[in-house]
Each structure stands twice: as C-alpha cells, then as structure tokens.
C-alpha cells in the first residue's frame, strides 16, 4: 500500500471520528443545559437526582459506559438492539457499523452532556448576584434577565473550559474502537493486523494534531471575539 492509499484508508476512519465528535457536540452541548438547571433546582429531589446522575456518568470510565449502552438491551431485555440495527442497515443499504456507532453516540452524548452541564453550572453560578438584582430593579423578568444579561457573560466565561473539553472530545472518539467501530485507530490496527504495517498507527496522530490545531484557532478566535467586555 502506498502512502497515499494508507492516508485515504485512515481518513475513512477519521470521518467516523469526526461524526462522533460532531454529533456529541451538537447533541451534548444543548443537553447539558437542562442538566445544569436541574443541578441548580430549588427542589431537592430534582437537584439530587441530577447530581447523582452526573456523579455516575463522570465517575465511570467512558469505555465502560460504551459497553454498558451497547450490551445492556441484549443482556437485560433479551433484545440486542444495536446489533439488530447493525444488521438492518447492512441488509437494506449495505452500511456497516450503524448500530454500534449509534451506541457510541448515545454513550458519548450522555457523558459529555454531564461534563458540559458542570461547566455551565460553574459559569452560571459565577455571575454576581448584583447582575440579577440590577435587572430586577429595572423591571425585567427572570427569563429576560437570563437571556439578555446573564447568558452572554456565562458564554464568555465558559469558552476556555469548553474549549478544553472539546479538544478532549476528538481524542476520546478513539474509545469507540472498544466495540469495533471503525474509527481511525481501529483502521490503523486493521493495517497492522492484515498488512503488518505499524507506522500508520503513529501516523494517525497527525490527523488528530491537524484537527486540534484547527479547533484551537477557531476557539481562540471565539474567545477573542467575546473579550470586548470584561465582567
């Protein structure tokens, strides 16, 4: 296999990594917000439930969570949901891995939503009470205060920790290969096993580096764009 062929082969895998990255970010980031609000709820039951969920999700290795999501429907309900989806997609459209990718997406979204929720919570709680009170005495409603005054300050404050988490996310996608999803590292291992080529495994690092480089630039710009005010 030529260098170019290896690159294309690995890039196929990296597309799966990017898919996991994109869906997790797109679904996990909004999902984190209701979790954050639950963690700050004035109702003890809601607050504690949310905190226990966050504790479990952050306390268990992500790889284990992928296994749990993937195997539990089959083990507990005798209904191996994700392998069925796998088969269904393969038989109908010739697409492989669909069910397993789905399991990975669910596990990642849940996991990252919990991490994001804690970042949001920290951001929201760091806004001084005086900002709310200034809104109240001007006759604003609670929701106007949140949308018009608090939100942007929170966004400004959470961009650095979110950037950190987002950069971790692209590297975490490698965990998908624990249930044989063909992301980039799985592809490289495939080459090692079938073609006795080890160097592609190390070459995968370049893909991550380039992508993280791009992310750093984009997120850095966002941070700079929001730095026109100081709260």
């Amino acid at each position: 296999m030529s260098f170019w062929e290896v690159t294309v082969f690995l890039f196929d895998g990296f597309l799966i990594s990017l898919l996991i990255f994109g869906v997790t970010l797109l679904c996990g980031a909004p999902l984190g917000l209701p979790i954050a609000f639950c963690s700050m709820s004035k109702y003890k039951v809601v607050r504690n439930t949310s905190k226990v969920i966050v504790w479990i999700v952050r306390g268990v290795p992500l790889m284990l969570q992928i296994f749990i999501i993937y195997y539990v429907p089959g083990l507990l309900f005798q209904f191996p949901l994700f392998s069925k989806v796998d088969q269904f997609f393969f038989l109908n459209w010739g697409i492989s891995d669909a069910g397993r990718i789905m399991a990975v997406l669910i596990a990642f979204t849940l996991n990252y939503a919990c991490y994001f929720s804690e970042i949001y919570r920290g951001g929201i709680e760091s806004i001084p009470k005086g900002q709310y009170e200034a809104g109240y005495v001007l006759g604003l409603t609670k929701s106007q205060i949140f949308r018009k005054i608090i939100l942007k300050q929170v966004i400004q404050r959470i961009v650095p920790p979110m950037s950190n988490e987002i950069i971790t996310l692209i590297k975490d996608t490698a965990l998908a290969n624990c249930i044989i999803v063909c992301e980039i590292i799985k592809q490289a291992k495939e080459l090692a096993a079938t073609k006795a080529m080890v160097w592609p495994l190390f070459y995968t690092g370049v893909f991550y580096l380039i992508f993280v480089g791009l992310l750093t630039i984009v997120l850095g710009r966002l941070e700079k764009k929001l730095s026109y005010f100081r709260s």
Partner: protein
Amino acid sequence: MALLTVENIKKSFGKTEVLKGITFSLEKGEVLSIIGSSGSGKTTLLRCLNFLETPQMGCITVNGETLFDAADSRTLSEAAIRLNRLHFGLVFQQFNLFPQYTVKQNITLAEELLAKEHIKKTGSYCGHTDYHEAVAAIDKKADGLLEEVGLSDKRDNYPCQLSGGQQQRVAIARALAMEPDILCFDEPTSALDPELTGEVLRVIRELKKAGRTMIIVTHEMEFARDVSDTVMFMDGGVVAEMGPPEQVIGNPQNSRTKEFLSRFNER
C-alpha cells in the same frame, strides 16, 4: 398626601431580626438620607422598598396606591412585583452595570424590552405604535440622561473602559431611564476612590435641584447634611432619630446618634 408611606416594616433573616418596625413618609421632591453603622438595617430597608426582599410585616404605599401589604395573604404575581418595582429606582454600591452592553445600551435595555412587550400586548407604548419609533424615542431620552450625568462622550464605551465614578453616573442614568417616583441610592460612593466621589455627589446634587425624590444611604456626613431635607439615623433595626439635618447631624438628641457621630468624627 405623602408620596411614599412606609408603615411598620419588619424583616428577619432566619432568627436575626434586621428591621424591627420602620415607619416614615416622604413628600414629593424630598431628599431623605439614611445614616447609621453597618448592620443597622439601612441596606435591607432599601432592598425591601425595591422588592428585592419581602418584609414579614408592614405596608408600603406610593401615591396612595398600596404596593405591598404583609397582612394581605395573596402572594403578588411576578408581573405585579415588576410593576411595583418601577415606582422605585436603585443605584447600587457596586454599580452592577451590564458589562456586555455599551453605556447607551445599559440605559435603554430595560425600557426597550418594556416597549416591545407593551406594543405586543396593547398595541402601543407611550403613544408609539411602532417599535422602531419607540426605540428612537428611548434613544433620544438616553442621550438626554447622558448629558445630565455629563457622559455624552462615553455613549458607545463599554463599562470596563470607564472609571468607577463614571460607571456610577451611568448607573444613575440607567435608573432614571425608567422614570421612578423615588430614586434610592445604596452607599453610592462607598466603592469609589475618594477623588472620584465628588463627581457622583455632584450629579446627585443636580438631581435634587431638578426636584427628584430620593432616599440616600450614605456614610458621607457632610454630603448628607448638605443635600438632604431629612436625615434618618438607624440603629439596630429601628429609626433612632429622624429630623432635619441641622438637628440629627448638627445637634443630635439621641445618645446613640451622638455616639455614632462622634466615632465618625474621630476618623
């Protein structure tokens, strides 16, 4: 009839009783200064007037309209509390400007939201049926207010680009924009460097000349004596002494007032 009547306001936090029955009234155009040591309940009183705290007892009336009555068991809706709040303006010790908005936007934000809501609900706001027309009028008013506090040239700056004194003047303009009946100040110069207090006090003096009704919690005795029609000395959650400044600051009758002022003069 008095513009504001406050009757027997009591407020406790847990077991600590902070306000033990405050009663006073205020005429239109009158300036009341509240002095007293920290922990005497001055700030809590202002916060009760602005509905940031709910008293357990008492009654607040503005222009003959009862805004709050603890004896009334109905809880006020959020909308009613909002309307009540607009009778009062509050200038905070820490300014609390909105950092992401320019000086002008800080002043216009609340009224623009109010105008939008009114036009949506009733079809008009202050005679304007078109939102953009209303915004233009609000903008014009903001420019007038900025001139009043001497900050026309800072219109498009962000709060972080201003000095403390300038920020506080913006906060005053912001409070005035909602046209409150009574403007309250919570130690407006306590967070400022001494050389910056002058510009804020000057603005407040101008407001008095313009006939604004104001309640000022302050530690600036000279200023209080100079600007107020009435001075209230609070001690341990009660009004210990109240009267014209020449009496309360110049010739206090109450022993606690005497003690407080002599401690003050030692500094």
